[in-house]
């Protein structure tokens, strides 16, 4: 019952007129930016961070909630209408959704994705509201060694367990960990990897890294292979509304997608890719119209979209309760918290309940706004998709550099942005995953300080990591998650040959 009181309190914060306005602006900007081809939710949040620089923390987090959900929804619109999913989580949506759009059923595809996202987002946010206090109670008993072990699990699952190649994933992670070492060591005040440059003493900004890797890297990559293929926008023809049959075929996939998405998103396993594909294959198996799959089956849009949104809400559970980002988008949200000196975790629940519960309540509101805004505005989003590619990417780069210029207008910072852009380009070209770099940069320093605290308490005895049952279990899980992909290499082969 405590949850209801807290949630009601959060609702009271969220429905203040200014906060409603922030949520509205967030949803609108998030969708508008997320709709642009090649921009996933992580980049949407990173690009829009400067807009929130001058707001108070409460308003800014509420705007984030809107941007986050808006960016997710925008991504699926792009996937349906031009078959270029901005992120791997929209890949399953693109499979059937784009076929539906080609067959003149783009309207119902967008509608089932919007309503499915709403249903899944609402259920998952309720799940989060109930799960979070319970996890917080659990997490306050965590010692530094338990946190360190938990971060090891996140490192391994984000980089090695679910990717195409554990070696390339781990390489990305270690590049991120290396970047995380740059700057002044907080315990002893010594500069590491600064090479005598005062600009490096503060360390690498997460936003500079993310915008460089995602925006600049993507622009360079698309430019380098422009000679290959042009993408085509499917016009939205026919009725926007779903028929009775569409509803009948959609509601069960929505619920099943939510059931896949929320738990998997809430585990520190990272990414919405797994639940969306699980949902896709389940719907394919259960469908009464299996012959339509591959030609535009509405179940194949409804299920994965619900799974995608539910897992997005799920990743907020470890982020808010443990301060543990398990996806690039969650890492950007954490960066948003950190710009106000706030560290998500059990303490934040105790110290700033207005902020945390206001954010959770705003997620409900953002969800409703998305539903109300997006179907009527679909014409506007389609027009955004039609911006010619040269202007689109030129505009993306202007906004990308603007964020850095506004935060730190120095030659060193901008050169780092450009260098991260080149890194992002090379990683895309050689098929290294990007998200582990961002997670490594943001979690590496936290993991290090937890480990050092644990060892300082134990007077330098590393056995402390195995003495706590929690930490020993988590380290065991991390080890299994690290070794499993090498043992089960057949699994990767199976996946590769399926598509």
């Amino acid at each position, binding site marked *: 019952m405590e949850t209801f009181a807290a949630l009601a309190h959060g609702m009271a914060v969220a429905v203040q007129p200014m906060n409603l306005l922030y949520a509205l602006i967030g949803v609108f900007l998030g969708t508008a930016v997320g709709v642009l081809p090649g921009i996933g939710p992580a980049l949407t949040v990173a690009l829009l961070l400067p807009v929130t620089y001058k707001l108070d923390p409460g308003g800014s987090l509420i705007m984030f909630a809107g941007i986050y959900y808006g960016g997710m929804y925008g991504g699926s619109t792009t996937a349906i209408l031009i078959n270029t999913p901005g992120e791997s989580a929209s890949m399953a949506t693109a499979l059937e959704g784009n076929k539906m759009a080609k067959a003149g059923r783009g309207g119902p595809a967008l509608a089932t994705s919007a309503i499915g996202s709403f249903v899944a987002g609402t259920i998952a946010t309720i799940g989060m509201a109930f799960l979070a206090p319970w996890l917080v109670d659990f997490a306050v008993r965590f010692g530094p060694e338990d946190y360190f072990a938990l971060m090891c699990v996140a490192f391994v699952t984000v980089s090695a367990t679910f990717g*195409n190649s554990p070696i390339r994933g781990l390489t990305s992670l270690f590049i991120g960990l290396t970047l995380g070492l740059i700057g002044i060591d907080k315990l002893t005040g010594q500069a590491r990897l600064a090479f005598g440059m005062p600009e490096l003493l503060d360390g690498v900004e997460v936003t500079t890294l993310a915008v460089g890797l995602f925006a600049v890297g993507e622009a360079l990559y698309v430019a380098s292979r422009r000679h*290959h293929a042009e993408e085509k926008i499917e016009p939205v023809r026919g009725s926007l509304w779903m028929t009775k049959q569409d509803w009948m075929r959609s509601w069960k996939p929505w619920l099943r997608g939510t059931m896949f998405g929320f738990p998997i998103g809430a585990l520190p396993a990272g990414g919405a890719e797994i639940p969306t594909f699980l949902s896709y294959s389940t719907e394919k198996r259960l469908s009464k119209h299996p012959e339509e799959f591959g030609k535009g089956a509405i179940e194949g849009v409804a299920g994965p979209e619900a799974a995608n949104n539910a897992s997005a809400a799920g990743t907020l559970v470890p982020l808010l309760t443990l301060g543990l980002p398990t996806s690039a988008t969650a890492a950007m949200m954490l960066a948003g918290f950190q710009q106000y000196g706030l560290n998500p975790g059990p303490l934040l629940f105790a110290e700033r309940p207005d902020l945390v519960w206001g954010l959770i309540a705003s997620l409900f509101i953002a969800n409703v706004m998305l539903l109300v805004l997006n179907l009527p505005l679909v014409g506007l989003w389609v027009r955004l998709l039609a911006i010619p590619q040269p202007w689109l*990417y*030129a505009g993306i780069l202007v906004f990308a550099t603007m964020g850095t210029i506004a935060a730190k207008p120095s030659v060193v910072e*901008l050169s780092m942005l450009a260098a991260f852009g080149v890194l992002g380009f090379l990683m895309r070209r050689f098929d290294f995953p990007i998200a582990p770099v961002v997670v490594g940069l943001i979690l590496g320093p936290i993991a290090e300080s937890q480990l050092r605290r644990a060892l300082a308490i*134990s007077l330098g005895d590393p056995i402390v990591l195995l003495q706590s049952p929690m930490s020993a279990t988590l380290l065991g899980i991390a080890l299994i998650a690290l070794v499993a992909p090498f043992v089960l290499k057949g699994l990767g082969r199976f996946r590769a040959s399926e598509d």
Partner: protein
Amino acid sequence: MTDSASSDLAQPPASRRIDPAGLVIAAALAVLAAVLVWDASRLSSTSMYGMGPEAMPVVVAVGLGILAIANLIDALRGNLPPRESADPKPVLLILGGLALLIAIIGLGGGFILATSALFVTTSAAFGRRAILADLVIALVMTTLIYLAFDRLLTLSLPAGPLERLL
């Protein structure tokens, strides 16, 4: 071995020749590991118990070293994923635009000129040839962005000759 043979049938046969790019990646990781160790060796360990500031860089360096070897093995086996040809010209054009932007900001040319330069070069990299028209679009757009963010949201964006006229 049977299972790898059957999956090879399902896909186009992967190239089993050594990929020089893989060797470069492995070498770069090894160099990075060496830099970490060199940097860590300059740190003085001041903490009485537990880890000093040099421990974590060494751990990361060991990880990078192992990954350098793993990437080397991947490259020698020809396990790098296939990639399509890339056109270096637009990439260099965009990087030139970024260099121009950094130079203009560094020399105090201001936000509008700097981002306009980046806009025009990027647009040209994506195949636009109407440079003058793009320049006008860029100047108008970045001026509006400057006004919106600098005046409305009171973010301080660097001012140059153009910004002072506003």
